[in-house]
């Protein structure tokens, strides 16, 4: 076959694949609405408003200033003081038993520090086993401290107070903003890895793959033809997820859209290669579905830092998380969306994905041989 | 003589489409009855009505003495069903399949064990009784699934294209099992696309466009159409316009 004929055959394949996708209306609607539904559901699930926050106060040497600050908290209907102690060690068991949500640690000599104009030491410790409420609580507590600061006598208002924010069990600040990149990776994994695995193994079951293999089509044409339409779908999903996140939750977008789409393409290709690999190794739609569930969806959710911070995983899982593409992709998307990071900051993660793609493509094309068995 | 199957003016419509158009058939007890027809002639619909999976639009059908609409529970207890597409669970052993079907039809454990062992040794399958069905040759599977369909000693057994793809010796062994069942008084109602197979039946009917176009013994039908095989009878009836071409 000459090159134009090869391209024509490839185009025909893509058209056929698009028809399969467009005619399976139910699946199509689900796939298109999925990012929207996920962003909205996860977003609201995460954004539970917090009331009745249980506060523990550590005030080693109470003075006028610390008592005034404590009064601000007790006066705020949202906080309930469950313990007051002089030593931080007393607080620890309260967290462990789940009896306190947040601790305010006031270093000795707050009044003097304010008078001298030296930095005052304030620390907020949140139980971040649920990162989202942790963030919200931090925000409320910060607001109370801010109110206290404003109420300080005029001369002292210029003093800088640095409340140290430390979250227990989860040192990074998680929020709906940080969730959206995770959702994007999840949706991409679903439409790429899982959908290609299913549609390729369907051809196997129907016996049409046998004809395709016997035809002059080369394996790369079959794979590319299979994969291209899902790449389009993946693009649509990334954009939907971001628009939904921005409209519903005002999640910012600070970086370059082009870079994000390029990174998504790279990640989608990794997923598609994985899907082809799974289909090549399984014999029915059912096992392909289970395989892609266990092989791609679960790691992308659990080992990617989307829900559980990688640092909080046991070390064997931390090690495994390195080979989960979603882990690297989530870092990239977070960087682009939330920090406006550019390729200078993210080239390492992008390189990791590129290497993964190369390896997977080689393995996928090899296992998807020109022959049966 | 009592009738095993009694169908009167049976009609089944799907919307405007009449799949089965006022057919009437009687099948005697102990008869091997062939139910033939082209793809889409209405055979499958008619069988579904007879085994109680579809309600007729009008007309009546009695199987093993019970009405398929008002007494479908009674009918189901007295019929066996085997199809080429589905009969045994491939991922169970012969013995497990027997236990399952025996249980479904409410046989006692004692009966299941006794009949199961008798069946397996009669079929010469004792040494594979605990191997997975998927590992057995096709011919063995088909003989086994026929025996399993007969486990609860049904009055009427429905066989839907039972012998596809097996070797000629196994196919004959299968038909001999059918004859033996008929000799014991079981009525056998069988569909097939293979006309040489139709000649094994005591009587047969040929369905064309929802109606029964011909019914009788193979010899009588051949004589009636002046041809030497049921294949030719079938071709004349099913596509009168193309008969004789090629």
């Amino acid at each position, binding site marked *: 076959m000459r090159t134009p004929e090869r391209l024509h055959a490839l185009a025909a394949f893509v058209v056929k694949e698009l*028809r399969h996708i467009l005619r399976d209306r139910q699946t199509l609607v689900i796939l298109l609405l999925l990012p929207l539904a996920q962003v909205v559901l996860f977003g609201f699930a995460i954004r539970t408003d917090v009331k009745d926050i249980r506060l523990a106060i550590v005030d080693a040497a109470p003075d006028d200033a610390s008592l005034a600050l404590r009064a601000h908290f007790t006066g705020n209907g949202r906080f309930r003081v469950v313990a007051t102690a002089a030593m931080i060690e007393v607080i620890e068991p309260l967290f462990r038993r789940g009896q306190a949500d947040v601790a305010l640690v006031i270093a000795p000599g707050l009044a003097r520090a304010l008078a001298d104009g030296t930095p005052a030491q304030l620390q907020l410790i949140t139980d971040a086993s649920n990162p989202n409420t942790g963030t919200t609580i931090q925000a409320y507590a910060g607001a109370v401290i801010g109110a206290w600061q404003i109420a300080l006598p005029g001369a002292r208002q210029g003093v800088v107070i640095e409340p140290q924010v430390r979250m227990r069990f989860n040192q990074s600040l998680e929020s709906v903003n940080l969730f959206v990149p995770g959702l994007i990776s999840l949706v991409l994994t679903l439409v790429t890895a899982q959908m290609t695995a299913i549609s390729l193994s369907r051809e196997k079951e129907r016996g*049409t793959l*046998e004809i395709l293999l*016997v035809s002059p089509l080369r394996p790369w044409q079959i794979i590319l033809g299979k994969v291209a339409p899902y790449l389009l779908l993946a693009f649509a999903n990334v954009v939907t997820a971001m628009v939904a996140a921005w409209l519903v939750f005002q999640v910012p977008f600070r970086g370059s859209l082009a870079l994000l789409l390029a990174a998504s393409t790279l990640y989608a290709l990794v997923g598609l290669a994985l899907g082809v690999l799974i289909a090549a190794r399984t014999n029915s739609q059912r096992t392909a579905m289970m395989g892609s569930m266990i092989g791609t969806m679960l790691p992308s959710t659990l080992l990617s830092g989307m829900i559980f911070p990688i640092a909080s995983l046991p070390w064997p899982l931390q090690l495994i998380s390195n080979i989960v593409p979603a882990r690297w992709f989530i870092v990239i998307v977070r960087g682009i969306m939330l920090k406006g990071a550019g390729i200078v900051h993210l080239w390492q993660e992008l390189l990791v994905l590129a290497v993964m793609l190369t390896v997977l493509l080689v393995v996928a094309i090899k296992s998807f041989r020109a*022959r049966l068995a | 003589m009592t009738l095993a199957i009694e169908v009167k003016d049976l009609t089944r419509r799907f919307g405007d489409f009449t799949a089965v158009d006022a057919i009437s058939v009687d099948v005697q007890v102990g008869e091997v009855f062939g139910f033939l027809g082209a*793809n889409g002639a209405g055979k499958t619909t008619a069988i579904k009505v007879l085994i109680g999976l579809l309600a007729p639009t009008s007309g009546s059908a009695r199987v093993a003495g019970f009405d398929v609409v008002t007494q479908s529970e009674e009918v189901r207890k007295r019929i066996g069903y085997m199809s080429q597409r589905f009969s045994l669970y491939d991922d169970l052993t012969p013995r497990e399949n027997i236990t399952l079907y025996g249980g479904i039809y409410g046989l006692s454990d004692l009966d299941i064990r006794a009949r199961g062992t008798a069946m397996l040794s009669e079929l010469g399958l004792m040494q594979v009784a605990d191997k997975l069905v998927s590992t057995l040759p096709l011919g063995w599977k088909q003989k086994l699934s026929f025996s399993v369909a007969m486990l609860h000693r049904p009055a009427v057994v429905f066989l839907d294209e039972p012998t596809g793809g097996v070797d000629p010796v196994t196919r004959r062994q299968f038909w001999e099992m059918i004859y033996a069942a008929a000799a014991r008084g079981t009525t056998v109602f069988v569909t097939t*696309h293979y006309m040489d197979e139709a000649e094994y039946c005591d009587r047969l009917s040929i369905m064309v466009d929802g109606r029964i176009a011909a019914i009788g013994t193979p010899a009588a039908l051949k004589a009636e159409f002046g041809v030497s095989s049921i294949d030719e009878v079938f071709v004349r009836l099913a596509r009168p316009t193309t008969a004789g071409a090629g």
Partner: protein
Amino acid sequence: MVTQASSPVVIEGVRKTFGSTVALDDVTFDVRAGELFGLVGPDGGGKTTLFRILTTLLVPDAGTATVLGRDVVRDLWEIRKRVGYMPGRFSLYPDLSVEENLRFFASVFGTTIEKGYDIIAPIYAQIEPFKHRRAGQLSGGMKQKLALSCALVHRPELLLLDEPTTGVDAVSRREFWDLLHDLQSSGLTIVVSTPYMDEADRCHRVALVQKGRVLAIDVPGAIGARFPRPLYAVHGVPRHATIEALRAFPHAASVHPFGDTLHYSDAREAHHPPQVIAEVTAWLTTRGIAEMTMSRIAPGIEDAFMALMGDEPGAPA
């Protein structure tokens, strides 16, 4: 005599195993140019494996196979362009229309419906009125014709059809064989497999295949002659009692039901047919089979097949 070089299919000593199962065991035959060649035998006999080797989908463990003068292992891309293949099921996309299926398979082979139209016209014209219908909604016979059109649209020099008539009604099957004859007479070489002995008569030559071995290769009319003994048709009522009585006859070599008669052969080769008929009649009569007839007949392919397979139905390995 056709030389091997011009034979579109030459198979020599081909062996293929899957684990401990021997799918093909030293298979040797060739298909002549312009021939309608049949592979006849039950499922699991190795027919599909053979097709997959010829279509370059599988590599033989031993032996060689050439298709259109090219080696199936080395020259797979050359063979794939020039062969038309219809696998065991009608492998179509049920969610695509008749025309979309055909157009797709044409593109896959680097051609178009229009360029291949004259070759598929006799077949495709029959289903063209339904070209906008989804393939999943076609009847068995129409699916079969569409699958054949798809396998033909790129003008292959060799057509390989694996059980194209399974699950299709008798009339559609007859029409399908007529189409194959038309294609063959236009010069195409066709290899077709079937589990049904009665279809062997529609081929020029057949290979009887059983358990990975070729039992015999010949023109259909000559295969019956491979049956080793005189054969008789016995008709008796009741049938089941007749079978049992005949089996009990001490000199019975084989007893097989054939439609409404039984085919009987006698173990005593020296006995003259009239003598055999007289003895069997007497034996059956004393066993209560009153209504009976018996006559000598010419053995058919199925009789020969059963004799050649040694009355040994698919025993487990």
